Structures are given as structure tokens and as C-alpha cells.
């Protein structure tokens, strides 16, 4: 598991760098803001590990930069909203288009292969929605990216867990 441990080290280092940035603002932030800051820095750190230019990393960086600018109110409030609006797919025009498309569905088939295909399609759609930047991936790309993403997520979760337990122990030391 040397691969994983090196990944974790790299992640931790980068995360700490990001976290220190928020140290100065810590007193002003409430719980939710702190949580967001932590999560953002963690996401950014995760996305910048390993030097791989996978799609999800790029999308994650883009998302966190938008979120960060939203949070800090660095940019004017209109700009990030515009970007966010472009990203979302739920405008009424889209919905209407989607509805029209479904009207011309082919007549339903009951064969097993067809049903299986539909099931797989549904799930790939769900997976695409889960992955950052997954909407613009084809199937082969999707599987690759999920592999990478799961590995990085695991490392992130483990590092965070250790940090949480360590800090909790620090606060609540065991009775000697």
C-alpha cells in the first residue's frame, strides 16, 4: 500500500497548506463556513495530487474555485452566479426540450437484454452525476475516472479520519 500512503502524505501536506490559509479568518467563521472551508481545501488538495490530468480533477478545481469565490465574496456576486447558472441543466427550456424528446420514445420492449441495457444506462447516468465533471464523459472514460476518483476519495477519507481522531484525542485526552 505504499502507493496509497504516499498519496495520503501528499494529500495531507497540500491540505494543511490550504487550511492554514483559513487560519486567520477562523475566528470570524461560524461552523458551517468552517466546514465549507475545510471541505474546499480538502477537495483542492485531493484534486492536485498525483499530477494526473483526469477530468474529475479539473472539474473539481473549477467547482471549488467557484465555491471559494462565492464564499469569500472576492468577486462580485453576479459573476459566480452566472457561471453557476451555465453549469446547471435545469432551466425551463432544457426541461421542455427534454420532455419533447421523451414523447418520441420507441415502443417499449420487454426482452431481457433490453431491460438489462436500460438498467445499466440508468446507473451510468447516476454515476456520471456523482462524479465531478462526469456529465461530459463517455463510458470508457467514466470507468477510468471512477477508478481514480475512488482511490483519491479513500485516501482523503482516511486522512481526514485520522486528523479528526487525533484532534479529538487532543481535546479529550484519555484518563491516565
Amino acid at each position, binding site marked *: 500500500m505504499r502507493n496509497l500512503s504516499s498519496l495520503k502524505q501528499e494529500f495531507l501536506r497540500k491540505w494543511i497548506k490550504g487550511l492554514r490559509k483559513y*487560519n486567520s479568518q477562523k475566528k470570524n467563521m461560524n*461552523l458551517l463556513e468552517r466546514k465549507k472551508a475545510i471541505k474546499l481545501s480538502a477537495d483542492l488538495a485531493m484534486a492536485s495530487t498525483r499530477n494526473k490530468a483526469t477530468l474529475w480533477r479539473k472539474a473539481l478545481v473549477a467547482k471549488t474555485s467557484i465555491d471559494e469565490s462565492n464564499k469569500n465574496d472576492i468577486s462580485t456576486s453576479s459573476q459566480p452566479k452566472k457561471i453557476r447558472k451555465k453549469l446547471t441543466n435545469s432551466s425551463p427550456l432544457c426541461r421542455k426540450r427534454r420532455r419533447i424528446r421523451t414523447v418520441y420514445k420507441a415502443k417499449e420492449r420487454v426482452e431481457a437484454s433490453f431491460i438489462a441495457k436500460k438498467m445499466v444506462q440508468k446507473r451510468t447516468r447516476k454515476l456520471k452525476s456523482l462524479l465531478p465533471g462526469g456529465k461530459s464523459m463517455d463510458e470508457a472514460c467514466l470507468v477510468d475516472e471512477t477508478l481514480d476518483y475512488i482511490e483519491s476519495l479513500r485516501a482523503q477519507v482516511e486522512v481526514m479520519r485520522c486528523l479528526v481522531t487525533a484532534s479529538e484525542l487532543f481535546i479529550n485526552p484519555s484518563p491516565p
Partner: protein
Amino acid sequence: MEQSTLESIQFNEEILGIMAPAPETANSFTALLELPPTQVVELLHSSEHTGKLPLHVSNPKPYPLTSVICGGTSNLTFPSNAALVERAARFSVFAGENPPQTEVKDEQQETDSNPSLTQGGGDCVSDPTVENKNSKGAKRKQLEKKVKVSSKKSKSIADENSGNGEELPYVHVRVRRGQATDSHSLAERARREKINARMKLLQELVPGCNKISGTALVLDKIINHVQSLQHEVEILSMKLAAVNPIIDFNLDSILATEGVSLMDSNFPTTVTPVMWPEISHNGNRPQFQQPWQSDGFHQPLWGREENNPNFMTPENSLLSYDSPANSVSLHSNQLKMEL
């Protein structure tokens, strides 16, 4: 028999024509047999005679491999398709049980057939000589469809039938009997196999997926796994946010600079469920922030654990551990590392 002799001449010419470019590629048929081309041509010559027999007559020979071809092509006239003849010839070479019609070549065949049997079964795919005959896929398709019995056995043997077109480098695709061999479906199949290979990797990565068969259920598990991991991240960041005002992350500068051996020990994946820190303690113990750096403060807190000897942080000497409990000691070890 005039027709057959004519066709044999035709066949020979085509074989010779094919043999010239064949030795260029490492995957050639001759390389398979590890023979010089001339010998192979002779082999094919001889086997061609023998190969014709099973095609013409539905012999009830007990040869396991050639019988497949017998069953497949016995009800047909001898195809003027040189590729098919060549294929049949090759099969008979592999079978190695040719009738003793051609005296001299039999020994060669038999010695070569056995090692080539295993080779041929596995490596037939890369035969470039057949790949040139892709245009005759339609006829072959018809022939193949007539074989029903022992289709599974012949799957690997018929693999050589595929080839992927005349392009170099060759994409090696396994074609099952009865499947189309035009380039579109082949490309699709290659793509699908690539995806399936990656899915297998995913299955191994996600715990609990190994025994499940079926893409949809596997995908279900993967989705659940990803969702649970994402939720974990959310929850943990929430917890950290709760803990955060106490711990000054300036200490992490030490971590950043000397965090080399941070993750060397095996982090327990089954960490004991962490309880929410009591936030009421925050007001009561503000002094934790300052004595963080002092050595004396640490002495009563932590006890050194001996079962993780691979710690190499220079701060090891600063700390001494007292806690006996396993989980707590593990956590304290982690903290020690982080210092």
C-alpha cells in the same frame, strides 16, 4: 479432380504470395510454427491434400479438432475460397493427425503440430495471413453459422478468423463463432472489451463486488461506495470544523515540513467510531492551545507504544505514551506522528 488441382495451384500461388509479407511481422504464421517459410509452404502443400479430404468427405474421424471443421464444412462443396482452404489446412496441421497420405511431411507435421497445438490455439488471433482475407467475411459467416455443435470448443480455434483489418499495428480481438467480422462491430467489440476490463478492475477495488455478476448490480455497488465516501468526507469535514477552533493549525507547519513518515504505519481502516467532541469543553480548556508546544505537558498525556516501531519523526523523543488501551494508543500514535 481437375477443379481441385486447379484450385490447388491457385491456393499455392496465394500461399506463396502471402508467405512473402508474412515473415515480416513477428506474429506471422511461420513464426508460430518456428519454421522457415519454405518448409511451411511444403507443410501446407501436404496438408492441403489432407485438408481437402475432410472437406470433401464427412469422415467420422475421431480427430477432435478437424472434426469440427468436418462438421462445419462437410455439407459444402469445396470452397474456391483460398482462405478457407488455408484455414482448414492449418487446422489439420494443428491436429497433427493427418492420414498417412503424404509420406515425408508427416513427421514434420507431427513434431511441429504438438507444440503448435497449444500455441496455435492461443495465438491464432495474430495471424496476418488471414487478416488479409477479411473481405471474404460474408461467406465465412455463412459457413460459421452452420456449425452448431462444438462451437464452444472451436471458439479459440476460430479466433484466428478474426483479425482486425489490414491496419498495422494489429488490434487483437477475439471473435466468437457466428459473430460478424466487419470492422465496425470489431471496433465496437474491442471497445466493449476495454470497458469490461476496466470494470473488472473497479470490481476488485470496491469491496464486495467480486462475487456479483452483472454490470448493473456492480454499478449499483460502485455508486453506493462513491456516495458513502462522499458523505464521509462531508461528515468528517463537519467534525473537523467543530474541533477546529481549539486546535491551532499552526502546528501543522511542523507536519508539513516533516511529514515524511506520516503515513508509514498502517492506519487502521476500522477506526473506532469517533464521538462528537464535547463542545462545552472548549471554554473550559483554553490552555490547550499554548502548552501544545511544551514538552512537559505531553509527558503525562501520551504513552509510547512499542508496536509501531517504524516512526521516524524527530519528535518521537519529545513524547512518551502512557495509555494502555489499544485504540487510544493507536490514536495517540497517530497524533504523535502528526507532531
